[in-house]
């Protein structure tokens, strides 16, 4: 079963992260990297992506003739996607356990960040065979 694990944060949160000490940032990254490596070893890793700073986000709408209308204005409270993992696991509980590990990744002073990780099942393009 494929799940996507979403890590999000507000602009304020991201700015805060940028202000961590180098050591704290490296420790945080090391834990996340370790999780990815474990998932590869366990045969559960499908994909992961880091998204660039929310400051570069654009919101696009289409005009009737296809012209994009673009702006970069978002509410202060908006939660931006910062990155995700896609995993292929046997049970939903396993997806939650992996998400729990991500959530525990350390912040300043090594204290667990306890970030909330959203877990969503991915849609598939397969039909059931029974028809």
């Amino acid at each position, binding site marked *: 079963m494929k799940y996507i694990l979403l890590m999000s944060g507000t602009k304020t949160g991201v700015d805060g992260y940028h202000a961590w000490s180098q050591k704290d940032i490296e420790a945080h990254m090391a834990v996340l*990297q370790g999780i990815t490596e474990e998932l590869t070893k366990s045969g559960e890793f499908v994909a992961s992506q*880091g998204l660039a700073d929310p400051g570069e*986000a654009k919101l696009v709408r*289409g005009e009737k003739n296809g012209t994009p209308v673009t702006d970069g204005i978002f509410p202060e409270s908006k939660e931006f*996607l910062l990155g995700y993992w896609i995993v292929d696991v046997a049970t939903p509980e396993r997806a939650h356990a992996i998400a*729990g590990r991500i959530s525990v990744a350390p912040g300043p002073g090594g204290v667990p960040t306890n970030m909330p990780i959203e*877990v*969503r099942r991915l*849609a598939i393009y397969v039909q059931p065979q029974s028809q």
Partner: protein
Amino acid sequence: MKYILMMNSMRAGHGVPQWPQKDLQAHIAFMIGLDEELRQSGELVSAEGLSFPDQAKLVRAGKNGVPITDGVFPESKEFLAGFWIIDVEKPERAYAVAAKVSAAPGLGGAPLNMPIEVRPIMSAPPPEML
């Protein structure tokens, strides 16, 4: 340059669209056509659809490694419905594709005009992630 184009769930209640058959079919055909176009042009890197938000779970680290899982989200939360990752020459192309997604037909065949968030993807192992 890689960009992610993100589409949020369409309506309050997050249920399936309740349009007439004709409009559903037009919407589905549009999305299939768009995927095909991006595949043919070699710009499509990946595309995923997410299951409906009513099945979303929020997980936090609990005590002793046991995660705390619940399905409670703030009222205002926007849920991701799907995304495309495309590899394009310039940002303008990414915005043009996003505009196309935005104009997907909905009720009565009218363009939905959904707001599509466009973000650059980290190309090298990023500072924030892996």
